[in-house]
């Protein structure tokens, strides 16, 4: 019995349609609430190549809605855990796991490997990054987003249709819109919205039905009501992304999740033993802090220099004014590297403190 016989006997699909599905390449951003059902249905449908990118690990509180995972996945990287489970669901297809964050640096080359991009991310910064990279690489984007009991679905950037920026030109500026894991969500909601995204993906591949291109579907799980709003293409918004494409890869992601960054005073860190001091300024920046043993990891190289970080120690990060060190702590927390603190004062003040207290610290740290 053919695995796909229930597809093939549909006159709208047939063997020809199933072959299109087998030849399709789809990249799913995030293996979370939305990514899980998208991945499961695309795998079961036989999409020939599926990429999944996620840096995060499976936590117990994920299992309330991320039904791809089980307790045996706890602590594993989500992309890897998803690949293992999906490969068992369908070993005839190719599933590629990227256990890393999506960044301005890797997005363009990654997107070029695929036909369709599915956004299942959980923060605005990544959503705008995904949208802009889809505009630059000219890939259709199947969008889904959720908030508590409400969801949104659309298809962006499809055959000169509107993009996410035609709907919301810029990330929210006003009162922070809650992100990531800080809000509650009805467990079944991402299942519904993610399944709708999988449906749009299959319609794009098959070239059948009506897509949600130029339309935003809004679903309310409380009332079971849907509203579909019309979105028009805004040339100015799209052109401004294209105008800036040369500098795209120079942009840096400041992960937007509302993670509390622990700040710590100089004196507190100096009095502690077992601390690794990390200077996140660029190598040429002066003055250096000479009387402490310092590891030099510029913020721009942080993600590729993780091997320099001593996981057994407390990490005290500093820069010139406390901004970059704060961002660096956020990046490390996102990568699940804990016990990181930002010293709000800069290198000069650390030198003054050491001078004042006449502390010359040994290399025992």
């Amino acid at each position, binding site marked *: 019995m053919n695995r796909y016989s229930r597809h093939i006997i549909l006159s709208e699909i047939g063997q020809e349609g199933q072959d299109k599905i087998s030849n399709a390449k789809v990249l799913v951003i995030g293996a979370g609430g939305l990514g899980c059902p998208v991945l499961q249905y695309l795998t079961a449908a036989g999409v020939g190549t599926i990429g999944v990118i996620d840096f995060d690990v499976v936590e117990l509180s994920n299992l309330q809605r991320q039904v791809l995972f089980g307790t045996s996945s706890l602590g594993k990287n989500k992309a890897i855990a998803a690949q293992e489970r999906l490969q068992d669901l369908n070993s005839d297809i190719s599933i590629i796991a990227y256990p890393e964050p999506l960044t301005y640096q890797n997005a363009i080359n990654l997107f070029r490997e695929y036909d369709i991009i599915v956004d299942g991310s959980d923060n605005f910064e990544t959503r705008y990054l995904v949208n802009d990279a889809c505009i630059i690489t000219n890939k259709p984007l199947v969008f889904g987003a959720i908030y508590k009991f409400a969801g949104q679905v659309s298809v962006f950037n499809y055959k000169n249709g509107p993009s996410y920026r035609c709907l919301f030109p810029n990330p929210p500026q006003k009162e922070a819109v809650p992100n990531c894991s800080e809000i509650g969500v009805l467990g079944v909601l991402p299942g519904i919205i993610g399944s709708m995204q999988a449906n749009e993906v299959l319609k794009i591949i098959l070239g059948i039905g009506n897509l949600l291109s130029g339309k935003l579907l809004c679903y309310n799980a409380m009332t079971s009501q849907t509203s*579909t709003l019309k979105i028009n293409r805004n040339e100015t918004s799209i052109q401004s992304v294209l105008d800036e494409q040369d500098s795209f890869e120079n942009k840096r992601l400041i992960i937007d999740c509302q993670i509390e960054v622990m700040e710590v005073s100089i004196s507190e860190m100096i009095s502690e033993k077992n601390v690794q001091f990390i200077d996140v300024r660029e190598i040429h920046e002066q003055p250096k802090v000479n009387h402490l043993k310092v590891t030099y990891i510029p913020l721009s190289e942080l993600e590729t220099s993780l091997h320099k970080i001593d996981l057994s120690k407390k990490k005290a990060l500093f820069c010139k004014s406390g901004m970059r060190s704060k961002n660096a702590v956020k990046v490390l927390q996102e990568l699940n590297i804990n016990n990181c603190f930002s010293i709000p004062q800069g290198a000069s003040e650390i030198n003054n403190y050491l001078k004042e207290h006449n502390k010359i610290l040994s290399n025992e740290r």
Partner: protein
Amino acid sequence: MLITIKYFGQIAEVTQKEEEQLEVSKGSVSGLLNTLNTKYSDLKNKDFQIAQNQELVDLDTELTGAEIALLPPFAGG
């Protein structure tokens, strides 16, 4: 004229309702927004787009519609 206003997501949390009917005078969408900002003071702290008769519109669009929707962005996944 009598219009129906729909509130989505975080906007419904500000207005404490998902839908209401309001009697408004003719004018632009921004005029209606001023009325709503007065009625719901927290609304000015929110980002959202406005749709009239299921189509996204600018603030200077003339109010014609029977139905207005206030639509915030969602980030969750």
